[in-house]
């Protein structure tokens, strides 16, 4: 994804497509860690990861609403939409790659990098964007070539760039910027949780409200653990797992004082990191399950695409898909891979391979 400074509507659309990819790119690693937890164990950890994963789905939908509002067409089925893991994030952080791996301190450390606040150790470097050549391994959807791009230190900065672009375009175009069909907006009927609801985007104010919600839930507002609604940011949620304690109101960064968060790193399926179809023998149940997973996931993404493209009622059967996906996660993770030292299977998320090379 070439992310230049947003100067026109096409640029905004590109950034928002990248944002949808970005939000989605967090979901396979979060779900892999989540479902690698043996059922009935690590309940606190399960809840923390689950809550973040669900909010990433909310963010994906909020970006979809924004893209629809400015006349774009969300599409989760384009080639390259699903990252190939290990993956660099589509907004261009360069110092780490994201793996699909079991629930472990390493996984949580990666999650902390994904959700890191903009000001964590970066604020003094002046300017938040590094402009340089595209890094290898980034998600490749929509790439137009090895050009100079913007790379962001944090997801929050990436969204700030989108907001700036939105402001500039709105100054030029006024409310005509919001030319999308309001009927395509996904409303609160289809999503709610303790962590805020869906916002239908129809004008600059609602667009900014959607962006603010994403940024606040991800990394927190500058220097705070809880946002205005008292909701704890993802970064600090994950940190609780490493620090072994819940944050509560009034706590300082890195010093939670709430109840204990017991973690049992051993009560986890020993799954292979970034498993690939080729890790599973042809004709084996693991291979079959992995293929079924990928085709189920492709159906799920196609259904979400329909929902974003004017048929929101498709979100209801998509819930059934998510149950199916969870079952397949477990079917894969409970079986060891032949020829490995006790490593178990895991979904491969090779969605494009399915299209290129159906078995």
């Amino acid at each position, binding site marked *: 994804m070439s992310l230049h400074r947003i100067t026109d509507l096409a640029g905004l659309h590109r950034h928002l497509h990248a944002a949808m990819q970005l939000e989605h790119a967090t979901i396979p690693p979060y779900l892999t860690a989540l479902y690698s937890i043996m059922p009935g164990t690590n309940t*606190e950890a399960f809840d923390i990861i689950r809550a973040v994963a669900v909010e990433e789905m909310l963010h994906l939908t909020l970006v979809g609403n924004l893209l629809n509002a400015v006349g774009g067409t969300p599409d989760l089925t384009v080639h390259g939409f699903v990252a190939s893991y290990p993956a660099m994030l589509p907004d261009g952080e360069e110092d780490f790659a994201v793996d699909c791996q079991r629930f472990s301190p390493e996984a949580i450390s990666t999650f902390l990098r994904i959700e890191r606040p903009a000001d964590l150790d970066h604020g003094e470097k002046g300017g938040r964007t590094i402009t340089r050549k595209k890094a290898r391994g980034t998600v490749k959807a929509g790439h137009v070539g090895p050009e100079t791009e913007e790379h962001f230190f944090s997801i929050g900065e990436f969204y700030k760039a989108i907001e700036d672009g939105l402001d500039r375009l709105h100054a030029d175009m006024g409310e005509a910027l919001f030319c999308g069909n309001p009927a395509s907006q996904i409303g609160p009927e289809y999503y709610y*949780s*303790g962590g805020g609801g869906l916002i239908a985007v129809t004008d600059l104010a609602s667009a900014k409200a959607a962006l603010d919600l994403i940024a606040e839930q991800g990394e927190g507002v500058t220097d705070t653990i809880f946002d205005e609604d008292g909701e704890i940011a993802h970064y600090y949620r994950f940190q609780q797992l490493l620090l072994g304690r819940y944050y509560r109101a009034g706590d300082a960064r890195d010093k939670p004082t709430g109840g204990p968060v017991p973690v049992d790193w051993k009560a986890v399926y020993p799954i292979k990191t970034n498993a690939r179809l080729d890790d599973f023998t042809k004709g084996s149940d693991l291979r079959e399950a992995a293929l079924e997973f990928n085709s189920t996931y492709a159906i799920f993404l196609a259904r979400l695409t329909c929902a974003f493209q004017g048929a929101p009622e498709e979100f209801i059967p998509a819930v059934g898909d998510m149950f199916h996906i969870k079952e397949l996660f477990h079917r894969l993770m409970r079986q060891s891979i032949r020829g490995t030292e006790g490593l178990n299977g895991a979904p491969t998320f090779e969605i494009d391979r399915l299209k290129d090379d159906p078995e």
Partner: protein
Amino acid sequence: MNGTEPFKIPPEAAFATTYDVAIVGSGVSGALIAKTLGALGLKVLVVEAGPGEDVTIGEYTKSVERFYSAVSKDNNAPYAHSRNAPMPRDYDAVKLRDSQPNDRGYLVQNGPFEIDSTYSRVLGGTTRHWEAKALRMLPDDFRMQSAFGRGRDWPVTYDALAPDYGRAERELGVSGNVEDQRYGGLTFEDGYVYPMKRMPPSFLDKTMAKDLDGFEVKVGEQTFALNVRSTPQARNGIPNPAYDGGKGFTPTGAVSIHQAEMGGRCQGNTNCVPICPVQAKYDARRTLLAAMDTGNVHLLARTVAFRVEVDGTTGRVTGITCKTYADKDAPGHVTGMLQARIFVLAANAVENARLMLASDLHGSSKLMGRNLMDHAYLLTWGLMPQVVGTGRGPLCTSGIEDIRTGNYRQHHAAVRFSIHNDGWGWATGAPYTDLAELVDARNLTGAALRRGLIDRVGRQLLLDCMIEVLPEETNRISVDPRHLDQLGNPRPVVSFHIPDYTLETAAFSRRLTRQIYQRLGAEDHTRYDPLAPGWVSHDGEGFTLRGGNHWAGTHIMGTEARTSVVDATQKSWDHGNLYLAGAGSMPSIGTANTTLTLAALCLRTADAIAAELSPGLATASVSTHCQEIPA
């Protein structure tokens, strides 16, 4: 939600504080009153007999796991049993022989009818295991004596209570469709919609509607056309954007003092009773945690009210003696006294009466504990001609409501019918019993067993007939010093019989359901075991009737101290600073589960208490209360 500390008030601190209001019981009644008063700035203490756990998702998950691993999947299976605050278990109900009381469980059953109803002594009370049906009572239910010459009239009319029903539907988060609720004289404010859209009808509902809608039934002198209608329920579904004049409704998700954003939308696990694995079902912990969030409400758990202390001259309550235990099973407790300006007993119809009687407070009407009511359930079950997808969705998404009232109530009781999505479980223990039969008796294995189960379980239909029971003074809760629990509290003694008025409708319902099964082309598999508890006979025909866990009537509401226990605000006639809140106040229960109605009553009670303690703070709706009591 934040604020862990209010859950851990040391007993000595609680007993040393004089609160504005002390509430016994953390169930829906107590929680609603606490939330309303806490929001007005009044200092409230809520006392809970049970362990007071389940305020995090992790703790809740333990309850779910406890249920999964329990051999007996009874109503209280998910909740840790405590010897210091024991709970009734439905399996404790056994056939009574030779008029010998059954004291094997917490309840002492005197009979003659063995009632298998239960309640839960845990944080959130019995809403923890309720099914969350949230039907309103009908206007006729409030005027049984004047309309039908049966039972008692309420001191409140449906029309007067209707706005409070609306408030209760907001607090509980009810999914429903007003258009489906237009029968039996029910009225709604113009333009009213439920907070959330109706639960989608199941495939079974739609299959039944095809054959049943418009089916005409003659009851007494009147003919009714039956229709399958959606059942309003306090379960998170799709918020209705039209709610509250277009402002919409924001559902409350899973309860946790840590942030665990579970949206709690119904996923159709078909496990509403006794525990929803995803917290889609309302339970009173939601209201209780909101009450805590006001900063004005404390919770004192593991504390059982022992005696209501009364000033002999004024009749006013001077305190409530309580016993606080440390370990849920081990003997040993500390005793303390609750101190407050106003006291509220919200411990349910059985426990409220038990506590008052244990305190020798029988009331000037001598009606404390009397007029005990519950619904009598007649279960009928059959196999549909095709697989209907049993085991998906909430337990019930639709019912048949059209004969909930009519002139026939001069002669026999009202009835409504629920269509069960969960198969025969309630009646036969399905699907476990089906599995045992297919394996043991029919020797099926592998694919044949899977097919057999789908064919057997997937076609199951259970229709429950929920039958009204009217108040009778001989149906009662009492106490007996020979029956004490570990803390030395007298256990409730239940004396109950099923009146002919109700039995007549049981017989009618059996006849009608036979016709319904015929129309559906279903095989009727209903059998009643004469040796089962709850077996009764009427005009030569025998049935098993089951309890509904809808205990009511024990501190009945009325217009004067001579003939009732509380007034229309649930205030005791005898004790000026005491309210007895909950279904115990209800003079009739019609054919609605009691929770929604008692929630509406308790919101009025909260208004009355607020008006009494801080007239300046009270909301506008308060001022009308007392005038509604007919002279």
